[in-house]
C-alpha cells in the first residue's frame, strides 16, 4: 500500500513516467486552448442574444412611445386634464406590456409614478434617469428588476424615453424588459460549452496516453533488451516490426548487441588465452627448474672442492634459484587470481595468535635489519578467514616494512570490533608520496628503481596481498609519507561475506596529523 501511495506521488510520477508527463503537458495546453475557445464562444453567443433582445426591446418601446406621443400631442386640454391623460396612457401601455408578459412600464410625473404596480424605483438606474433628463431619444441599459412585493428580482433591460406634453412639460417613461428567457438560453449554452470542453479534455488525454504508450512500447522493449544485455544475456535480441523508426530502433539495438557480444567474446577468449598461457608457462617451467635446482644443489654441496670462482658461482646459482622459484610461484598465484580460480579455504582463526606466530617467525629477519618488531593487539580477533592467505599477507607486509624500514622500529597492530578485524603494519622508514601510494599495489612496481631488493621480494607481494584481501571481501589500504614511514592496513570481515563500514584501526597512524593517503 505504502509503495503504491509513494508511486502515485505526482512529483515522482513526473520524474519517472514519460506518459504521465506527456499527458499532463497535453492536458495543460488543451485546457488553455479550450478555455480560450469556450470564452470566445460564450462571449459571442451572449453578445448576440443580448444585442438581439435590446434591438427588439428598443423597437417595441419606440413603437409604444411614438403612439403615446401622438395621443398625448392630440390631447385636448379643454376636455381632459393632462394628468388624467398621462395616467390613461400609462395604464394602456402597462396593459399591453402585461398582455404578453413582455415589459413593465413606468412614467414619472412630478406628482407620482404611473405604471406597473409593485416595481421598486431602484430598478431604474440613476445613470439612465440622467441620460433621459439630458436630452431627447431612446436609451437602454441592463438592470436588475426588483419589486416592492415579494416577487423575486430578475435581470432585465431598461429602455428609457421622454414623453412631451403640450405645454412643453416632459415625462420620462421607462420600459423594463425582463431578460430571464435570454439568461436561461445563455446558461444552457454555457453548460453545453463546459460539457463539450470536459469531454474534449478527457478524450484528448486518453488519446494522448494511448499514443504515448504505443510509441513507448518499443522504447521500453529497447530498454529491457539493454538491461538484459547489461545483465550478461548477450544473445538476447529485440523483435523487429512496426513503423519504420521503431523497427530501426530495434535493428540498431540488435546490431549493437551483436557487436557487443562479438567484442566481449573476443576479449574473453583473449583473456582466457592469456591466463592459460601464463599458467601453462609457469607449469612448463617447473620441470626444467626442478632439474636445474637439483643440479645446483649437487654443485652447491660440493662447492668446497671447487676453486673460489666456481664455488661462488655455485652459491649465486643456488641463491638466485630460490628467488626465481618464488617469482614463479607468485606469477602462478597472480595468474590464478586473474583466472578467477583462487578459492578461499575458510576456518575460524584467532588472528591474534596467527599474527603473533608470524611476527615471531619474522623477528630474526627484522633483527638482522636492525628493526625492533613489536606486536600490539587488543579486542576479540576471531575471524573466519583463509589461514594461509592471511599469513601470506602479514608476511608480505612485515617483510616489506623490514625492507623499507631503515632499521627503525616496526609495530604490528591487531584489533577487532563487532564486524571486522584489522591488522596494521607501521614502519618508520623511507615512506612514500601520495603519487607513489597509488602505485604500491601495482605489479612489479618499485618505489625507487635505483634501490636494489635486499630481502628479495618478487615485486608481486603487495599485488597478491591486495587480491587476497579482496577475496576475503576485505580492504588493504596503504598510507605513506616521504621520510615519515608507511602503514599498511588489512581489514577483513569477522564472518565470511560479512559487511563492515569502518576498520577497527585507523588508516593513518594517529600520531601523523596531515595525511597523504591512498586506499584500495
Amino acid at each position, binding site marked *: 500500500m505504502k509503495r503504491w501511495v509513494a508511486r502515485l506521488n505526482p512529483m515522482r510520477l513526473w520524474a519517472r513516467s514519460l506518459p504521465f508527463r506527456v499527458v499532463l503537458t497535453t492536458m495543460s495546453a488543451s485546457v488553455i486552448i479550450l478555455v480560450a475557445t469556450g470564452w470566445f464562444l460564450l462571449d459571442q453567443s451572449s453578445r448576440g442574444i443580448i444585442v438581439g433582445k435590446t434591438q427588439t426591446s428598443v423597437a417595441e418601446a419606440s413603437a409604444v412611445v411614438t403612439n403615446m406621443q401622438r395621443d398625448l400631442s392630440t390631447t385636448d386640454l379643454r376636455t381632459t386634464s393632462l394628468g388624467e391623460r398621462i395616467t390613461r396612457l400609462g395604464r394602456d401601455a402597462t396593459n399591453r406590456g402585461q398582455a404578453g408578459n413582455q415589459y413593465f412600464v413606468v412614467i414619472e410625473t412630478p406628482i407620482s409614478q404611473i405604471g406597473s404596480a409593485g416595481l421598486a424605483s431602484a430598478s431604474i438606474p440613476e445613470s439612465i434617469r440622467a441620460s433621459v433628463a439630458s436630452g431627447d431619444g431612446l436609451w437602454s441599459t441592463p438592470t436588475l428588476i426588483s419589486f416592492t412585493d415579494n416577487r423575486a428580482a430578475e435581470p432585465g433591460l431598461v429602455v428609457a424615453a421622454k414623453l412631451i406634453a403640450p405645454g412643453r412639460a416632459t415625462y420620462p417613461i421607462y420600459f423594463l424588459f425582463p431578460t430571464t428567457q435570454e439568461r436561461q438560453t445563455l446558461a444552457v449554452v454555457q453548460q453545453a460549452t463546459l460539457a463539450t470542453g470536459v469531454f474534449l479534455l478527457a478524450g484528448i488525454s486518453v488519446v494522448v496516453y494511448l499514443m504515448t504508450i504505443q510509441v513507448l512500447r518499443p522504447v521500453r522493449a529497447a530498454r529491457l533488451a539493454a538491461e538484459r544485455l547489461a545483465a550478461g544475456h548477450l544473445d538476447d535480441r529485440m523483435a523487429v516490426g512496426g513503423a519504420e523508426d521503431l523497427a530501426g530502433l530495434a535493428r540498431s539495438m540488435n546490431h549493437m548487441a551483436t557487436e557487443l557480444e562479438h567484442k566481449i567474446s573476443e576479449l574473453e577468449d583473449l583473456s582466457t588465452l592469456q591466463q592459460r598461457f601464463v599458467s601453462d608457462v609457469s*607449469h*612448463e617451467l*617447473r*620441470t*626444467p*627448474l*626442478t*632439474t636445474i*635446482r*637439483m*643440479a645446483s*644443489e*649437487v654443485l652447491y654441496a660440493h662447492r668446497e672442492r671447487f676453486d673460489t670462482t666456481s664455488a661462488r658461482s655455485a652459491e649465486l646459482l643456488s641463491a638466485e634459484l630460490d628467488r626465481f*622459484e618464488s617469482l*614463479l610461484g607468485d606469477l602462478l598465484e597472480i595468474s*590464478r587470481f586473474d583466472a578467477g580460480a583462487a578459492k578461499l579455504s575458510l576456518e575460524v582463526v584467532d588472528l591474534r595468535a596467527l599474527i603473533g606466530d608470524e611476527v615471531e617467525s619474522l623477528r630474526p629477519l627484522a633483527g638482522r635489519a636492525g628493526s625492533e618488531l613489536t606486536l600490539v593487539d587488543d579486542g576479540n580477533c576471531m575471524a573466519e578467514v583463509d*589461514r*594461509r592467505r592471511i599469513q601470506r599477507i602479514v608476511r608480505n607486509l612485515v617483510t616489506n616494512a623490514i625492507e623499507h624500514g631503515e632499521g627503525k622500529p616496526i609495530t604490528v597492530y591487531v584489533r577487532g570490533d563487532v564486524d571486522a578485524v584489522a591488522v596494521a603494519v607501521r614502519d618508520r622508514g623511507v615512506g612514500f608520496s601520495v603519487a607513489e601510494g597509488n602505485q604500491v599495489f601495482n605489479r612489479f612496481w618499485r618505489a625507487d628503481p635505483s634501490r636494489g631488493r635486499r630481502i628479495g621480494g618478487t615485486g608481486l607481494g603487495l599485488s597478491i596481498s591486495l587480491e587476497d584481501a579482496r577475496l576475503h571481501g576485505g580492504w588493504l589500504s596503504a598510507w605513506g609519507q616521504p621520510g615519515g614511514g608507511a602503514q599498511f592496513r588489512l581489514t577483513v570481515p569477522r564472518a565470511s561475506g560479512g559487511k563492515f563500514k569502518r576498520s577497527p584501526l585507523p588508516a593513518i597512524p594517529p600520531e601523523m596529523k596531515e595525511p597523504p593517503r591512498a586506499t584500495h
Partner: protein
Amino acid sequence: MSEGQRATPATILVVDDDEALAEMLQIVLRQEGFDPALCHTGQHALKAFHDHKPDLVLLDLMLPGRDGVDVCRDIRAESGVPIIMLTAKSDTNDVVDGLEAGADDYVAKPFKTQELLARIKTRLRRRPIAEDDAQTIGIGDLVINVTEHTVRRGEEEITLTPLEFDLLLALARRPKQAFTREVLLEEVWGYRHASDTRLVNVHVQRLRSKVETDPERPEIVVTVRGIGYRAGEPKTEG
C-alpha cells in the same frame, strides 16, 4: 617387504618423460645409495615395474602415452609398493586423482632434493616395532598383527598397502585419542609443518573402503567433527 636394515640398496623406479630430470634424479638417488631405474613413457611403465620389481616408484603425473594416474592405478592393482607422484600442478585435481588412484604421497615441482629424499625415506622406512608393543591390537572388529603386518576380520585377511597399514596402526595404537589431520601427516607421512589435508582425507577414504563393512557409516576409522579421526572401539567377540 624390506625391513629397516637392508642388505641390498632399495630399487627406485623413476617414471618421467623429461629425460634431463630423470637423469638428474638418477644421479641424486645413486648418490644417496639407492638403485634407480628409469622409464620415460607411460606405456612401458608397467613392464619396467615388472622387470625391476622396485621398492618405490617415483611417478610423474603428466606422461606421454599413458597418463600417470592410470599407471598408478595399474601398479596399485597388483602391488602395495609405495608410489610418490611428481607433479607440476599441485593445486589442481590431478593430485587428488593421483591419490585416489593409490599414490601414497606427492612432491610438487620444483622440489628441493632434500625434500624428495625425505619423502622417499619415510615411505621406505618401516615403523620399527617398539619393545612394549603388543603383538596384536584390536580396532573395531579388526585385529592387527603388528609383527606379521596383517589385518584380519575374523578369519578373513584384509590386504592393505604399507601406508594404509601405518595409518590404521597409528590410529589403533592410541585408541582413545582423536588425531588431527596435521598430527596424522606428521606420524604417517613424516611431514613437519605441512597442511595439505587432502593426503589424509583421500587415504582415510581408501582405507575405509577396504576395512569398513559399511564405508558410509564407518566404525573402524571414525570422524571426529571439527578435529579429525579416531579409532573405533575394539570389539571382543568371536
